[in-house]
Structure formats: C-alpha cells, structure tokens
C-alpha cells in the first residue's frame, strides 16, 4: 500500500502575540512546527505501515525551510519526502495550492492520501477536499478512526457535531484527520540520526503535471482585501475587593441587566 501524507509547516499560533502599539502580529521568535492535524495524519499512516506494511511518502508545498519539518517526518518513520518549492506557487490560495499538490500526486503511485483537517494558521479546512476534487477521489473529512477491512476497503469514523458517521469507502480516497484522535509518536533516536542522511527531494513546478496559469496568485480566485488586528472592546470595570463585596457587585450587575 502506498500512502501520501500532506504536511504543512506553520507558525505556532499559540505563541503569536499582537504588538499593542502597532497592532500587528509579532512573528519574531515564533517557532515553526508541523501542523498538528497533519502530524495526526502522519501518525495514522505510520500505524497502517506498522500494522500491514505501507510505503509512506510525505509531501509539502512551501519555502525551503520546510525541509526541517520533512526531516522530522523521516525521524518519525516516513519513507520518502518531497518538497514542492517554487516562486511560481507564491500567493496561492487554497484552490491554487490544492491544484499544485494534485499535480504532484498525479506523478506518484498511491492508494490513499491523508491530510490534516485544517492548518492552525489559516484554519480553512479546504485544501484536503479541494485536492480530492482535483484528483476525482472520494473524501472523508473529520476522521477520528480508519481501519482496513478484509476486502481492502477502509472503514472510517467521521466526527460530526452531533454524531459519528461510520463510513465504508471503496478504492482510492482522501482522508482529512483530527489531531486529537491520533496522538503522534516521538521521533526515534535512530530515526533522528538517519533523518539527516536522507534526501528531501525538492521539486519545482516544471516537474509536476500542471498548467502554469492555475498556480500561485494568478490561479487564486480569492484575494486578501485587507487584514487587521481584532478590535478590542472597551474594558469594563475591574474590582479587587473582599469576597462579600464581590458577590454584591455581581448581584447588582445581574439585577441591572435584568438577568435576575
């Protein structure tokens, strides 16, 4: 079984702060990490590899720095790593990104593609389903469990707000998975040693099956009109008082607002 896992290197958004004066993001010193849902996807692929043997290829699109993340994937147990990196991809929205990734996937042999549900910087959850559509594959999103059946089909749990759907999918497909369902393994010591001798293949746009007009900014129907820090509302009252007084203040406020 050949599995492709899509990975994205993202800034750790829990570490991002806003400059209170300029109102801009402070990105300096913010670590780059493997997107958590994608890491869950890699873990699922590696569990399948452990269970019945699989060849796991990790792919990513991004700047050359993403090399570090792909080596981390090697150290966890991936077999091959390809980084799609080219100025022609710059400014891509989810449609143009998924199109470029589909061009890469078409040049590879695969039975299953796994992606994370969403990336913590964009939070769109769109690249996975769009990649599936470009490749004409069925998709299952919000995956919390996936097992291979005797007949070769996959039995997959999709987590909805109010239910879990148990779905059986036949043939090649794409899954987008939840980090919370697949606690990732640590890199092994031997894996870390080997990761630095392995090759991360860097591919340019010429190497994949795509039309150039559909790449990057030009291939992106969505444009960022503006971005701005979230408006903060005016601060309310703050009291540092005894517990008795605190209770009084709360009771009076609830009465004032007709809640009690």
């Amino acid at each position, binding site marked *: 079984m050949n599995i492709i896992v899509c990975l994205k290197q993202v*800034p750790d*958004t*829990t570490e*991002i*702060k806003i400059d209170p004066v300029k109102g801009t*993001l402070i990105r300096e010193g913010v670590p780059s990490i493997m997107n958590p849902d994608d890491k869950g996807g890699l873990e699922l692929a590696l569990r399948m590899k452990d269970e019945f043997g699989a060849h796991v290829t990790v792919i990513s699109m991004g700047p050359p720095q993403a090399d570090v993340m792909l080596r981390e994937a090697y150290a966890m147990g991936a077999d091959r790593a390809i980084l799609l990196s080219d100025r022609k991809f710059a400014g891509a929205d*989810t*449609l143009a990104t*998924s199109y470029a990734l589909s061009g890469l996937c078409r040049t590879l042999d695969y039975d299953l593609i796994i992606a994370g549900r969403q990336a*913590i*910087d964009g*939070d769109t*959850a*769109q690249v996975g389903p*769009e990649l599936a*559509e*470009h490749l*004409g594959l*069925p*998709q*299952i999103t*919000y995956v919390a469990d996936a097992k291979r059946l005797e007949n070769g089909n996959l*039995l997959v749990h999709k987590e*909805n707000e*109010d*239910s*879990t*759907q*148990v*779905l*059986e*999918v*036949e043939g090649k*497909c794409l899954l987008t998975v939840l980090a*919370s369902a697949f606690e990732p393994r640590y890199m092994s010591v031997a894996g870390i040693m080997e990761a630095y001798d392995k090759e991360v293949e860097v591919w340019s746009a010429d190497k994949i099956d795509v039309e150039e007009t559909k790449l990057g900014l030009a291939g*992106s129907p*969505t*444009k*960022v*009109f*503006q*971005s*701005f*820090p*979230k408006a903060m*509302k005016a*601060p*309310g009252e*703050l009291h*540092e*008082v005894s*517990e008795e007084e*605190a*209770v009084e203040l709360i*009771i009076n*406020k*609830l009465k004032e*607002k007709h*809640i*009690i």
Partner: protein
Amino acid sequence: MDKKDYKNVFVFAEQREGVIQPVAFELLGKARDLADVLGEKVVAMFLGYGIKNQAQTLIEMGADEVIVVDTPELKDYLSEQYSQAVYQIIDARKPSIVLYGATTIGRDMAPRLACRLRAGLTADCTKLEVKPAQEEGFMDLHSTRPAFGGNLMATIVCPNTRPQMSTVRPGVMQKRERDAARQGVVTDFAPNFDTSKFRVRLVETIKADKSVADISEAKILVSGGRGVHDKEGFNKLQALADQLGGQVASSRAMVDNGVMPHECQVGQTGKTVRPNLYIACGISGAIQHLAGMEESDLIVAINKDKFAPIFSVADLGIVGDLHKIVPMLTERLKKEMAE
C-alpha cells in the same frame, strides 16, 4: 464566465434527520440583508428525503424561493451525493453569492464545490458585507474571518469569479423573526446523479450523548478554566449554573486534560457562544477562547490574576478566588430567588 450572468444570494439550508439546523436560519437572516442591498432574491437550497413539507418554514425565515431536492439518495449527508446535487443547482441557476454553514457538512462540501466550479471560497466567516467593486457596475462580497488562531482578521474578496462562496460560523449571524405571512416560491429540482462516483457508503450513525445539552443554545453559561482545577471545582460551577438556570462550559485547557467533554468547549476549536450572561471562572482568556465568547451580552470574569486577558473583554471583572466567590454567590442567589 460572464459575471453579469450571476444573480441572487443562495443559501444551503442544512438539515439533519429532517430537522432544519439553526445555522440555516442564521444564513437566511444574513442573506436577506445582502440581497436587499443588492436588489436580488434570497434562494434556499433544501436537500434531503421527506423534507419538502418544511420548505415554507424557510420562506417564513427570509427566503424568496426554496429549491427542494427531495430524494432517497440524499437521506443522509454524503459528500459526493450532496455535491453533485448542489453543483447542478448552481450550474443551472448561476447565483452571485452562495453561503453554507461552517459545520462538518458545510466545510466538507463547500470546498469540493469551489473546486468543481473554480470559484473562490472563504472559510468560517464571522462578517459578510457587499460593497461596490473596483469594476464598475458590480458589487463584491467582503467576507471577514479570523486567521492565525484568531489573532488577526482578514477580509477576503473574489473580484474576478462567480459565484462568491463562504462558509459562515454558526452562532454569529442573527436570524430574523419568523413571519408566517411571508410568501415565496417552492421549486422542485431533480438532479441527474452519476452513481458511479458514489464510493462511500454509510454503515451506521452513532448519535452523540444527548444528555450533554448544546452550550451554543444556552442563555446563561458558567464557564471554567485552569483555575477551576478539577471535577470538584466544576461541581461548584454547576451549582451556580443550576441556580441561574444555565449550563456549564469550559476552556480548552480543561478539555485537553480530560476534566470536561469536548462538547462543552468554548473557543476557536470549540463552539462560538453568545449567551445573555457568560461567567468566566478561572479562565485566563487566551485569544482562541475570547474568539468564542466575546459577543456575549454580559461577561463577568473571576480570576486571581489581575493581568489576565479575560478582563479585557469582561464587563465586570473580579480579582479573587473563584473557589470562595462562586459558592457564596450561589448561596446569595438562592436567598434572592426565595424572596
């Protein structure tokens, strides 16, 4: 593609097991605002099986027309079945705007459709407006959404393509008052399914535990964070919530450590809530949490740390020990209610 051919604001009216979801009404409310500015119509796409008799409800909630696809293939939501039907409606009717709920259904289907239509899609929007486009004679949809974990807001436009599509976060837009006198048209639509593409089969649906009430519907929430410490701490919050006729919610920290179930989580990766009263107990107020609750009408925060960011959104902030204040408040309310 000629942009001039695209007209009207379409809404995907999501139903589950025959129950129209609240987000469908919220989208109709917003679509009504947008369509009134544009001088266009609001059209609901209503898909399922055995649902047609509910089309009138969508009209009363703001739709001018309801396109109904009522067929056994659409009994349960499946990506390909629903995508084919919605694609064929959009292809035939050419809307200028299409809105979906940012639910596990909307966010599964909308990107497939965006790709099939080569249309722009903006995810998980919290604000929608139509404004004059650079190109004369056109109006663009401005979709605003949080990015970078809620640290930044971004407004997205699709100046060159139609339809303009967005998924919209549940609990953010306001639904209209139901108007039983509203008139509208109900249109049947019969898609031609390519069943060779149906390769996912629903084996079974396991319902989530219904004893956990939906916090996004609650009028009063007493919410706890790391400062609550444990289950015992949450019992104090529960007693206060019971006294107020509200429910208990949680920050992500207390879900990640297993004290509270995921259904109770407020924030960027949990639920967005806007109750009449939100009492934040021992919650420091990470930006991801604030994103899920800052629209609440009245926010009361209790925290030991007077520099906690939660106080920046609180209407009333109390620097103190929730483990003492919450039980005292519960007792005091008991007396108040008895009087």
